[in-house]
């Protein structure tokens, strides 16, 4: 690692990048605070108007955003919790337990990462139609409850953070595997579990293709399904559409505001080892 001190030009260019990254989001809020007539005029608005409250409430009720937000919290929360627990268990087994076929199985896990989920979407739809799960939340929770990336991420973390002697000492004391997981693995893995949980939450929140197929706008939509409904002209008012987009993004921005540094750390950590 090398760290040269940054000059003014560096700060200027980074400032441009920051502006470019944040501007579309800020402008979403600006457009959401205007009305559709103002948005159909040049030059486009650069500052907030007084319509934000009205647009948010229309989006909340007419576009089903209230239900959608609640549903998405449930879905993303369950998926994140499931992924974290299952990934930690499997990651621990791959990192510190010896069993026949472990190398092959780990290679399989990594291999599944390269299979794009879109390829399975047709039979998956037939499956949930068969089970009468269409438009029910388990249809989007169960297929994404485990993640190969998560298993690999936890394995890499535990292989380095969990001393083998610690596990062996617990074994010597006669602790069962479950006790070891509860009293040794979980405490050590906690930071990585938190990062994986946040990354998974963000991914599940933004999952798009499958929810569009499995859920409907008027039944039990996730945020992405409700926003697609808005894009389909469900509410033909651009400022309301922007208010919906704002509602659907704000919770995640909040997570970012609170845990941004940890999420950045998690992505960088996953990158070096991946």
């Amino acid at each position, binding site marked *: 690692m*090398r760290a*040269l001190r*940054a000059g003014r030009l*560096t700060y200027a*260019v*980074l400032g441009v*990048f*920051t502006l470019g*990254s*944040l501007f579309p*989001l800020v*402008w979403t809020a600006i*457009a959401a605070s205007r009305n559709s007539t103002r948005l159909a005029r040049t030059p*486009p608005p650069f500052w907030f108007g007084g319509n934000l409250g009205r647009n948010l409430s229309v989006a909340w009720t007419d576009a089903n955003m209230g239900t959608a937000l609640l549903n998405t919290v449930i879905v993303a929360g369950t998926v994140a919790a499931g992924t974290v627990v299952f990934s930690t*268990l*499997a990651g621990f*087994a791959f990192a510190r*337990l*010896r*069993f026949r076929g472990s190398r092959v199985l780990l290679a*399989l896990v990594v291999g599944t990462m390269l*299979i*794009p989920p879109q390829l*399975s*979407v*047709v*039979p*998956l739809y*037939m499956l949930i139609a068969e089970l009468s799960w269409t438009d029910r939340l388990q249809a989007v929770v*169960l*297929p994404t409850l485990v993640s*190969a990336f998560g*298993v690999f991420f936890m394995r890499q973390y535990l292989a380095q953070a969990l001393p083998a002697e610690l596990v*062996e000492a617990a*074994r010597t004391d*006669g602790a*069962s595997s*479950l006790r070891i997981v509860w009293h040794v693995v979980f405490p050590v893995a906690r930071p990585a579990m938190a990062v994986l949980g946040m990354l998974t939450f963000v991914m599940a929140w*933004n999952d*798009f293709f499958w929810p*569009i197929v499995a859920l409907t706008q008027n039944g039990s939509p996730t*945020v*992405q399904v409700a*926003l*697609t409904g*808005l*894009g389909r002209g469900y509410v033909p008012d651009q400022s309301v*559409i922007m208010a*919906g*987009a704002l509602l*659907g993004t704000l919770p*995640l921005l909040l*997570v*970012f505001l609170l845990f941004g*540094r940890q999420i*950045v750390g998690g*992505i*960088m950590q996953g*990158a*070096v080892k991946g």
Partner: protein
Amino acid sequence: MTDETAVLSPSPARTARKGEGEGRRQVWRSRRYRWDVRFGPYAFVAPFFLFFAAFGLFPLLYTGWAALHQVELTDPDSMTWVGLKNFTRLWDDEFFWNALRNTVTIGLLSTVPQLLIALGLAHLLNYRLRGSAFFRVAVLTPYATSVAAATLVFVLLFGRDYGMVNWALSGLGFGPVDWQNGPLASQVAVSTIVVWRWTGYNALIYLAAMQAVPAELYESAELDGASRWRQFLHVTVPSLRPTIFFTCVVSTIGATQLFGEPLLFNGGAAATGGSDHQFQTLGLYLYEQGWVNLHLGRASAIAWAMFLILLLIAGAARLLRGRGEAR
């Protein structure tokens, strides 16, 4: 495996000293212990493989089976065997080839600038910065924005009559661009959304790799009188080669899957990818065939075609990589 037998089986003397019942309990306990050691690991990895088998592997294989049938969305239970008809149909389908071309163009237009900009951005973030945490979180924010929210905003920004992009262009003296209907313009616009969402993410991955480059490499390059730019080209980039390869793979897979952006960039979010299919991607075409035209068999055939294309790309990448390493 060595510790388990040594530590766990109770010594014979001890068992004998205790009563019969106690001994049996000991035997039972040690047997349970051995089971735990032998099968525990499988129990821990089982949830992943069970869920993957049910919701990943089975559907993937079944896609191949469904592709050989005529299946309608309205009645998924009745399947009629049609052999390779879905595939031959696809071969003669101009919309399929159109979608394939668009996927390649949009893939290049989004992946190449995205990774190049990310590399430069990572280089800047690697300087000793005041407020480096702020910059890192800021450039990652688009990653937290969903495809839907981002696309809906960009639709307005790229509006032909009142959009901010055209307003800015007219200030520079360029005529209004029809970002919706122009074939190339619409693909540039769709690619812009992808670039906006993923550049910061890739920059952080490059940054992590840059921080792992040993400082001595730069010091010796400095001694040789290499300029900053030459150091970047001859030290940073070669050290990052595995990471660059990794991001190329991930972005390529992402590009072949592109769906949300072209769906929502279209007015009314119809799955056609524009009035003239000018930005319809393979993912979008799959969706249109399956869930708009209700032909699940044809949709499966498209899915398998996409899979084959990915395999071809992977094969080509392997060849290229092998040659690069041989040199």
